[in-house]
């Protein structure tokens, strides 16, 4: 019984952390249709910004906010200089964002070096529930992840801005005829998606050692989260996809090595992608 509870708790924590990591990607892919291969680099960049600012003495929360802003600005530049000219060519944006990933990774190496960096955990210790213990920081991140997704859902469904964005996804031409500024809205969405990726990178950084490639594994996991959950299903889809990927990883890791478990999960995700290309919930 205890193991079952602890596995469930583990799976929930991993699900929510993964949802946080994938959310920026889900926003950019789901709303403006860009397969952002640079997502991993944005996560990494967020982690490094957080490392750099906390090392300089900035309090952790402020450091994460700065990291999110920094990555949002990088995303804005990327969109403005390159991506905006290629919105109607998804395959080109895929290659271009991959080039962004390659360049960003090298820039990170040049600026920050290739050594492992550690961001000290702002909430060390664990909360004791008798039978199980939850690491305090991971728990806090899980709750924050839920809040962030909930708040974004609120903006999306209940505010003027959300209505505009939804109108744009439903019918681009009609929305523009009604006077909506398409290019500005796209820019805004890309910028927000990048910023959330940076935020996620910053928040995840205390949980692992930061190196120039930490975003790599998250990149493909995030993609599978989005595809399994269903592209455009921003909120429920991200959570369901994360639950599937994170949960399956937790369960398989009980029986085999962590890295091998991940390979099995990727394989499962490919099978799902094959039979449910529109996500696990939709038939096609």
């Amino acid at each position: 019984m205890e193991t079952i509870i602890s596995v469930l708790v583990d799976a929930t924590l991993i699900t929510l952390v993964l949802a946080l990591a994938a959310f920026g990607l889900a926003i950019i892919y789901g709303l403006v249709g860009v397969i952002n291969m640079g997502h991993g680099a944005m996560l990494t960049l967020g982690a490094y910004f957080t490392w750099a600012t906390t090392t300089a003495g900035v309090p952790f929360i402020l450091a994460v906010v700065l990291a999110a802003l920094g990555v949002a600005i990088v995303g804005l530049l990327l969109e403005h200089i390159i991506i905006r000219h290629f919105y109607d060519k998804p395959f080109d944006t895929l290659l271009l964002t991959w080039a962004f990933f390659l360049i960003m990774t090298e820039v990170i190496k040049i600026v920050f070096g290739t050594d492992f960096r550690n961001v000290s955990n702002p909430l060390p210790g664990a909360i004791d529930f008798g039978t199980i213990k939850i690491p305090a920081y991971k728990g806090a991140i899980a709750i924050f992840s839920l809040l962030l997704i909930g708040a974004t859902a609120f903006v999306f469904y209940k505010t003027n801005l959300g209505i505009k964005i939804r109108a744009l996804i439903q019918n681009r031409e009609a929305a523009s005829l009604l006077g909506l500024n398409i290019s500005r809205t796209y820019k805004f969405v890309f910028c927000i998606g990048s910023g959330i990726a940076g935020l996620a990178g910053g928040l995840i950084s205390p949980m692992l050692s930061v190196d120039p490639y930490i975003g790599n594994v998250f990149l493909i996991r995030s993609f599978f989260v989005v595809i399994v959950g269903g592209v455009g299903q921003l909120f429920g889809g991200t959570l369901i996809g994360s639950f599937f990927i994170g949960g399956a990883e937790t369960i398989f890791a009980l029986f085999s090595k962590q890295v091998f478990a991940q390979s099995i999960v990727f394989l499962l995700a490919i099978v799902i992608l094959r039979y449910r290309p529109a996500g696990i919930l939709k038939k096609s």
Partner: protein
Amino acid sequence: MTEHSEKQWIESAAAKPRNIFSEEIVAVIIFIIIALLPIFITGYPIYILPQYMLFGVLAMSLALLWGFVGILSFGQAAFFAVGAYTMGLAMQTNFGVNSGYIGILISPLVGGALAAITGYFLFNAGVKATYFVLVTLALSIMIEQIAVSQSDITGGWNGMYIDRMPLTFGSLGEISLYNDIPVYYAILPVVIAMYAFVRWFATSRFGKILIGIRENEDRMTALGFNISAYKTGAFALSGAIACLAGALYGAHANFVAPSLGGVLFSTEVVVWVAIAGRSSLLAALLGGIIVASLSNYLSTVTPDYWQLVLGIIFILVIVFLKGGVAGAISDLSKHLQSKVKQ
């Protein structure tokens, strides 16, 4: 398809015979130069060049897929690494025959089968081209992770030592390949043969149908072609070639580590092919050789900045020069020809 690109396609199809002719002449000249190189140069370049030629073959296997079928694989290096590991495992066996030959025989089968299974599974469901990129990227990560985690077989992070095979001729004796010159002249003919084979394949009926699929999938479906079977066939061939090249690479380098199959190397191949020109097999082959040599040289001089420059060139090619260097040369020569005619 727009009317414009259809017109372009017909024009390029009409101009084909002459292009094939010229590319083959260029290929012959280049292979002769490569064959004569050891007379003028000795030492490290001659030692390392066979490895770069095999990188070139890897790039060519991607160009076959990307340029001719229009599907992009972000996991081509996974096949290369699988080939090297297959060779390594084969060299550990002893069936009374030359283990290297077993490796050379089995590796394309393994690569072809792996690609055929993946390809059939995905193409049969009509998975989008962008999702194919993601799946092959995942394949690359999986191969790397399996190589790391199954350390009993693969040696894990430490990699695997691969003995260099000799060339044996049954009772006629054998040639040791431990020196640079013999192995150079053992690998070069294989590279030429693989180029010639892929070149022949691309101009065969099968290859023409692939180009048809690239240009207009719906029309080819309407004409009764089984699209997924052709795509699967192309991917299987591409995987088999990459795997065979990997097997030879492993034998030459005497070593394989998980990172050979990883994402970074896989996508480096994509960058080579994009820069060299995806629709020319020879360009991809040369692009692999040249960019890999440059990478190796410049990585020792300025490792980070070189990768940075490569990334920037990659962006510029995608934005301004779709056909890569080969496309630019061919456009230029067409332009000059039309000038001459006027």
